[in-house]
């Protein structure tokens, strides 16, 4: 009992060890998640068959003396499941990471990656293509819509002076509401028959139509922009006690906010163009990870990305299997599974902070 107060420095040294445990564990979970999820689905594929297919495509087949799968079974792994799973992983990682950055920059626990009107902007772009036949590729239109909404929101926030957290949130809200109204109007005016399902599934988010091109686009966005955002841990830490405190620690507050908001928006816009706006991950996952590991961003950023990736892969696996052969939009699953898990974390963490 008397020795407890002398342990102060020991408590400080446990910190890096904690990150050293969490990150490798999260990597293992993600790799395991991908390898297991790819074996789950309507056609019973054995784990060995899945790995045979992957090894063959990676050019390891001859070296390991593996017998290639039949074309249909191989296509199931390599053309259907794997692109979908890898896209889900990249989207989950990017959304969780973007959520952390948004919440820290605005010091608002309700902030999410779509804060600057990105999802409604992208939705507007998408419905214009799906319903009014605007001659653009859907992802291009969605990305264009997201960027236009971002520009409008930042323009509005910036026109009011320095982009303070409140101005950012309110400008995003205004643009978001405007785009939502436009989306509703277009749907109300133009939707006929089956188009409604297509629109609805896009609006709720889905990676069902992912291809290797989606993997490339989301993967590159997450690797480039996500890695860059992951390095901003100290900068985001400095915002813990607000803008003035950050400035007093030598952080160029306004410049940092512009650069990071644009970085997050480009990443989110890219992801939304491929998957639609999948909810919940970017809002709740950062809170869940904070409850697990505390609010230091050097660990929070990469860990949120890794866990977000695993989470979305599992959510999407459920979405495509639970009511098989019907598919649920994955956005329904993320919330339906995620909310109870989060409630449990809140309840467990109630004594802390």
């Amino acid at each position, binding site marked *: 009992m008397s020795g407890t107060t002398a342990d*102060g420095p020991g408590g400080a040294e446990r910190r890096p060890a904690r990150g050293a445990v969490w990150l490798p564990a999260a990597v293992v979970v993600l790799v395991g998640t991908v390898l297991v999820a790819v074996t789950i689905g309507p056609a019973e594929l054995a784990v060995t068959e899945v790995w045979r297919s992957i090894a063959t495509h990676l050019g390891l087949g001859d070296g390991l003396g593996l017998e290639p799968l039949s074309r249909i079974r191989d296509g199931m792994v390599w053309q259907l499941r794997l692109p979908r799973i890898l896209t889900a992983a990249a989207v989950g990682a990017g959304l969780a990471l973007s959520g952390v950055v948004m919440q820290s920059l605005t010091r608002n626990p309700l902030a999410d990656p779509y804060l600057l009107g990105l999802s409604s902007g992208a939705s507007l772009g998408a419905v214009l293509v799906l319903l009014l036949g605007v001659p653009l590729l859907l992802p291009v239109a969605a990305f264009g819509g997201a960027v236009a909404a971002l520009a409008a929101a930042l323009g509005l926030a910036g026109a009011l002076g320095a982009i303070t957290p409140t101005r950012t949130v309110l400008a995003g809200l205004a643009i978001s509401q405007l785009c939502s109204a436009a989306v509703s109007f277009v749907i109300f005016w133009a939707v006929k028959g089956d188009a409604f399902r297509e629109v609805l599934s896009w609006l709720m988010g889905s990676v069902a139509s992912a291809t290797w091109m989606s993997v490339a686009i989301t993967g590159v966005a997450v690797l480039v922009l996500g890695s860059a955002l992951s*390095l901003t841990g*100290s*900068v985001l830490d400095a915002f813990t006690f607000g803008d*003035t405190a950050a400035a007093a*620690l*030598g952080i160029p507050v306004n410049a940092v906010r512009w650069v990071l908001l644009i970085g997050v928006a480009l990443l989110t816009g890219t992801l939304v163009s491929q998957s639609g706006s999948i909810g919940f991950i970017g809002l709740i996952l950062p809170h869940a990870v904070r409850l697990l590991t*505390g609010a*230091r961003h050097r660990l929070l950023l990469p860990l949120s990305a890794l866990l977000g990736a695993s989470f979305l892969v599992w959510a999407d696996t459920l979405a495509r299997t639970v009511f098989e052969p019907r598919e649920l939009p994955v956005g329904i699953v993320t919330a339906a599974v995620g909310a109870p898990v989060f409630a449990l974390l809140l309840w467990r963490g109630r004594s802390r*902070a």
Partner: protein
Amino acid sequence: MTTDEQGTAHLGADAGLEASRVSWGVDGRLILDGVDCTAPPGAVTGLLGPNGSGKSTLLRVIAAVQPAGSGTGEPGVRFGGEDLAALSRRRRARVLALVEQDATTDLPVSVLDAVLLGRIPHRSLLAGDSAADRDVAQQALATAGALELAGRAVATLSGGERQRVHMARALAQRPRLLLLDEPTNHLDIAAQLHAMRVLRSLADDGVTVLAALHDLNLAAATCDHVVLLSGGRVAAAGAVADVLVPEVIEPVYGVRCEVLTHPRTGRPVLTFEPRTA
């Protein structure tokens, strides 16, 4: 508890803080109107004045964290003979630290992590905290009398405890100039005296301390010098016994005031009455 603040620069020939002709306004209203203010090194200088007299704004302008307003003229804020505005942000953050009023967070941050934020200006933004950073943070906690709080979450602290943590965070910056905005606000009397004692021990180690204070008697009992602001201008500045006199206090605060002498310390003790019409 006044462990030697090793690592803090002791500058014999330090000129301290010299702010001259500082003006700052917003929407055409001048909050600061040509303020001249000095704070010598190794002393605790109290920044006094009624609500709205510009104390917080002056501290933030000195710290160069006040959002751009319509400053007029060429204000100069020099410390140790150096122009603070000419320093890079990071270098400035290694010279001076600011303890804000009521800075809080909803995030689940531990006290130690909060104090480690003070090391950000001293290390690469890509690096994590080193063992040396953690040593400095522990020392800062000890100096501020908050060592036993290290493992607690900031959100669970009382007002007095939180103030000690903010002080420790500022000390972890190893500043030569410490600016504090109402560091004793909302604190009980023991915590107020504790805070002032920490400032005194820092000043004894050569740090220049400038603290905005509301309580004139606390300032009279603990400060070496005071600067009295009124309506964005300096009403008086100098030694405590010269400034805290009825002729100065009464017009600035709009009250009647008597000054007694403390029988033991010899310092001024002020009593107030409303001014009768």
